[in-house]
């Protein structure tokens, strides 16, 4: 039975290791799309719920699948398959292929593993693996921009990991168990909830923790951006679902903060995204914005446990929707970039338009469904917030539309660079696959999601008026990406400098004193010794000693 869980993880790991051997590389590249296949199969075929334990692994690991994680596993695997296929076209045989492949495969392992992990440590292990391996994906281009983005990325990753570690440790200690299921059902303290939310929010890219996300997406090569945006940031959501006591415990404060930041995120990200001129960065901001929606849902869930079952279904659906659509958009951008001829570009643009529309919430698409379902689900939540939420949600459709338009324009102006070897035809298959999956999501969802599909099916029709308001929001575009201005390289020095200075000062002082002492130490004994032997003080001491002992003894007689 264990093999079922081990294989999806083992296969990519094994392939990564085999990359060491040059002879195996072409073969591995050929297998790249298939690396996530076992995971997909597992998601599709495994009976739910399912669990196994590996007591020896890492303080007792356990793996399993439930309804939610099965869905996550499914779309994640799908995305990785598509990205793998694209990557094969994109990189195979280029100088950087080895590093990319290893990081890609390790990140894949992490991403898949965290979904099937059922205990905190295993989860954390895979989460970290994914985060750190992705660094290699981000800086793949080795350009200045890529390194800047990578540094920003890694700084946030570390921040997130630390928060996560602390949160998990606290939570596990509070729950007295390391099983995620126990964590979810136990009473969670405010602190650990905050830490967990913080850790995962970094991954989600919720403002103000989003700084890493757009640059990273912009800098990473297309296949990497696809998984980063499509699969990996969902891990943040998944993490929250997996660890927080959603539906059992109300954490109103946290919920409030989440909702507020989510709301802000939705719009601010759009405003920031509009001012970008790199299409992939624009897509990145779009992801941030979308994640704001998800944060909204989460916040609501935190405030009102009762609404959670509905919210959960919506959130899962939204995740799947965004994953597929965003993945398709990125791959499409790549496809566009790889085109050399005008006709090809037009064709590619048409292909890209489909997921863009889906994302913007065109009627009958998963985007529209998701928003409506969220609205109805939020209706079960907090009364006070509801009006604002409805407004916000509605406007977000507008914002996303604007952003997609911006994406189209920038894509046309500055298509992402594709390696010369990239064959457009090769990318078509994977892109089309994802586009179709994104488009077809509303139709296959009821079958795929089973019980979780109910709220989606029940969602009402979409409103179209928000489009009108879109223009006014463009005013916010002047809020440019000022936040990017601050470089992180100063950070390190600023911490270390005072310490170094104090230490150096102390060392210098000690050295000076020591030199002086050494001088005296060298000279004094020489002089004293010289004098003593010259004056024969040693002889004098004989008499002195006798006198002293005599005096001492004389005192003794009295």
């Amino acid at each position, binding site marked *: 039975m264990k093999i079922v869980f081990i294989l999806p993880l083992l296969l990519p790991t094994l392939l990564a290791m085999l990359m060491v051997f040059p002879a195996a590389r072409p073969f591995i590249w050929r297998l790249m799309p298939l690396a996530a296949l076992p995971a997909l199969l597992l998601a599709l075929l495994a009976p739910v719920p399912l669990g196994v334990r590996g007591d020896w692994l890492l303080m007792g690991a356990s793996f399993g699948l439930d309804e939610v994680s099965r869905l996550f596993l499914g779309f994640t695997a799908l995305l990785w398959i598509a990205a793998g296929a694209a990557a094969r076209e994109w990189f195979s045989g280029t100088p950087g292929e080895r590093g990319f492949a290893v990081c890609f495969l390790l990140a894949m392992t992490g991403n898949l593993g965290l979904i099937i992990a059922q205990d905190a440590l295993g989860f954390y292990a895979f989460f970290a693996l994914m985060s750190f391996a992705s660094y290699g994906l981000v800086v793949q281009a080795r350009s200045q921009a890529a390194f800047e983005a990578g540094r920003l990325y890694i700084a946030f990753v570390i921040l997130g990991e630390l928060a996560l570690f602390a949160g998990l440790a606290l939570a596990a200690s509070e729950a007295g168990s390391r099983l995620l299921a126990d964590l979810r059902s136990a009473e969670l303290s405010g602190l650990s909830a905050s830490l967990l939310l913080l850790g995962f929010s970094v991954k989600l890219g919720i403002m103000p923790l989003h700084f890493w996300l757009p640059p990273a997406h912009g800098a990473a090569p297309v296949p990497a951006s696809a998984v980063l945006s499509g699969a990996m940031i969902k891990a943040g959501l998944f993490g929250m679902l997996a660890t927080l006591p959603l539906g059992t415990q109300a954490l109103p404060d946290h919920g409030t903060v989440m909702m507020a930041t989510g709301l802000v995120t939705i719009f601010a990200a759009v405003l920031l995204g509009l001012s970008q001129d790199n299409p992939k960065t624009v897509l990145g901001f779009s992801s941030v914005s979308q994640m704001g929606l998800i944060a909204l849902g989460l916040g609501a869930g935190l405030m009102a446990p009762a609404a959670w079952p509905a919210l959960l279904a919506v959130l899962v659906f939204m995740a799947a929707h965004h994953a597929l659509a965003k993945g398709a958009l990125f791959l499409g951008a790549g496809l566009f970039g790889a085109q050399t001829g005008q006709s090809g570009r037009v064709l590619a643009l048409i292909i890209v338009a489909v997921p863009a529309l889906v994302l913007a919430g065109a009627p009958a698409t998963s985007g529209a469904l998701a928003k409506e379902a969220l609205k109805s689900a939020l209706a079960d939540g907090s009364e006070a917030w509801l009006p604002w939420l409805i407004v916000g949600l509605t406007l977000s459709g507008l914002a996303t539309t604007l952003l997609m338009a911006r994406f189209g324009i920038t894509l046309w102006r500055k298509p992402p660079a594709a390696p010369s070897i990239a064959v457009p035809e090769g990318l078509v298959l994977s892109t089309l696959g994802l586009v179709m999956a994104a488009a077809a999501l509303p139709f296959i969802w009821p079958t795929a999601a089973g019980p979780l599909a109910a709220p989606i099916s029940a969602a009402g029709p979409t409103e179209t008026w928000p489009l009108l308001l879109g223009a006014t929001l463009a005013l916010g575009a002047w809020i440019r990406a000022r936040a990017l201005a601050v470089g992180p390289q100063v950070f390190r020095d600023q911490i270390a400098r005072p310490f170094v200075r104090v230490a150096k000062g102390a060392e210098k002082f000690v050295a000076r004193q020591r030199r002086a002492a050494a001088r005296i130490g060298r000279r004094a004994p020489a002089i004293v010794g010289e004098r003593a032997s010259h*004056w024969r003080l040693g002889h*004098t001491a004989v*008499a002195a000693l006798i*006198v002293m002992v*005599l*005096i001492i003894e*004389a005192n003794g007689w009295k």
Partner: protein
Amino acid sequence: MIDPLLLFDVILGLAIVSLAVTVLVVRDRFAMIVLVIVFGLMSALAWVRLAAPDVALAEAAIGTGLTGALLLATWRQVRTEPERWPALPRGVMVINMGLCALVLAGLVGAFLATPLGTPGLGVAVADNLADSGVEHPVTAVLLNFRAYDTLMEVVVLLVAVIAVWMIDRGVSQAPQPTLGPELGDLPRGFARLVLPAITVIGAYLLWVGTSAPGGAFQGGAVLAAVGILLLLTQRYQPQPSHRPLARGVFVLGVAGFAAVALLVAGGGRVPFEYPADHAKTLILLIEGLVTLSIAATLAALFHGREPEAISTQGGRS
């Protein structure tokens, strides 16, 4: 009313102390040596006053006579030496003297606080004198009661002669350290006359030691004087070929003494426990051997270097 003898003692004592001081402060080194000889003789006189004729004799013969000879010989060799040792600063000297004065005060205090005339071991010696084999108590102590000390004392002499042989290698080109050439004929004739007489005196002293003041050391010293005269008058000149013999004579005392001491052990006796009926014989035997040894050793100490040193190795180290 002061006892005139005591007055004499006081004057003698003062003279001895002043002589001691003079010895150390007198400029001329020859005068210094002469004064130290005088000092030794006065001390011997004082010891006679203290009823210690054996000691006085030993001091006169060895402590004064032979030491004086040694000093003179050395003085001859190093008299060319300029006074090139810078004296200590006055302050240091004053401090030293002050401290020495304090030492003196302390010791005198302790001495005055101690009653004289403790019983000591005199009674024990007298009680056991009969078993010792000799009649003279000092000889009994030396050769029987504390024979071990005496043996070791002879060992000290042996060490000294070995050390002197090793240290002193003569002067490669410098004149021989003898008084020979300057002494002229008179001393030679004097020596011819005097030598047999001294020899007889030495033998007598040895013999008489068992019952009256005198004994191996005094006898040996007198005989050593014979040797020294022989050397001075160049009647005898040490040759490298004489070395084995000389070595033999040097160790004779120690070897004989030790052999007797060890051989008497056994049959329930411990080392140095002479069988009662042979005690006198054995002691005489030992004394004879030791006297010979002492005489040869002291003469050799006077002569200094090993005979071979000049002829083959010179002053080379």
